[in-house]
């Protein structure tokens, strides 16, 4: 499977899910339980992605310059700093720690 295949297959699925919401009968997703599960699935997947993006190097766990960068990001989001500023700040901290402090 090439990268293009991945992009096309995933795009068709994601757009298909959007179309489904405009065409399917409302019944199966009505009620608090399906809605709660869907909202929590989003939280779950994003949290797992944070953990893996911060700690994984292939299939091993490492603590490197990403950890302080992500901790800084959490503090900045808490202070309601805009998304783009936080992302740039996190990148800058990781880059500086690697260049001047010898972090991995």
């Amino acid at each position, binding site marked *: 499977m090439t990268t293009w295949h991945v992009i096309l297959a995933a795009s068709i699925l*994601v757009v298909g899910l959007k179309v489904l919401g405009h065409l399917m009968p409302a019944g199966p997703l009505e009620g608090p339980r399906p809605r709660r599960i869907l909202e929590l699935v989003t939280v779950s997947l994003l949290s*797992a992605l944070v953990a893996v*993006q911060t700690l994984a190097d292939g299939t*091993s766990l490492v603590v490197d310059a990403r950890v302080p960068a992500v901790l800084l990001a959490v503090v900045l989001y808490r202070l309601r700093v805009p998304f783009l500023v936080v992302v740039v700040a996190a990148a800058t901290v990781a880059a500086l720690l690697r260049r001047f402090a010898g972090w991995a």
Partner: protein
Amino acid sequence: MTRERRSPTERQAWRQGLSVAIATAAYGISFGALSVASGLDVWQTCALSLLMFSGGSQFALVGVVAGGGAPATAIASAAILGVRNTLYGLSVRPWLGAHGATRLPAAILTIDESTAVGLAQPDERARRVGFWVTGIGIYLGWNATTLVGALVGDVLGDVRMWGLDAAAAAAFVGLLWPRLASRQAAAVGVASAVVAAVLVPALPAGVPVLVAVVVAIVVGWTNWLGRPTASTTDAATGPDAQERA
């Protein structure tokens, strides 16, 4: 001039839609740069924003690709994050009134922001204005900034030297942050992060993220830590505590 035909609520929907669109489109720069840093080329990066057009799914796909995950894992991650758009479609279609040729664009533009701005408006006409202004505004802005970000990322080259791997993690924190308002969501977030991290050495790249979703399904099904049965004893015996043990 259409000005005198717009009601105050429609004008407010325009303003809100445009401001949300501008703020959201700015993320496109980080997506473009991170996507190229993950190994996709500029065309592939732009194709994702043009075709998929769902920020969370796009970030997830390039994140799994960057981590060396299998193609099926990357596709599954993007699709699972796209499921919430189905729910948004159900929420907006009663007042959106999209029929025939407008249905496909309406579906493609059904994302977090267009749904949120639409639902926030007080009457049906303003809701439609809010949805379309936000959706079209983000579509145009997101694709333009994706291209800019991809070109910048292409010039930067080395991912780690510029801290772009840390930027990817920080981007996911930003997508997650507004969803952690309830105690139940926060508990699911912590438990999912722990499950995914613990499984990293045991499973192929990308798979731990998918397994962590089981936490959400179990907690969502049983409504652990949720209203109206929330109590302090749940916190000690809930999924959070068990996954850590």
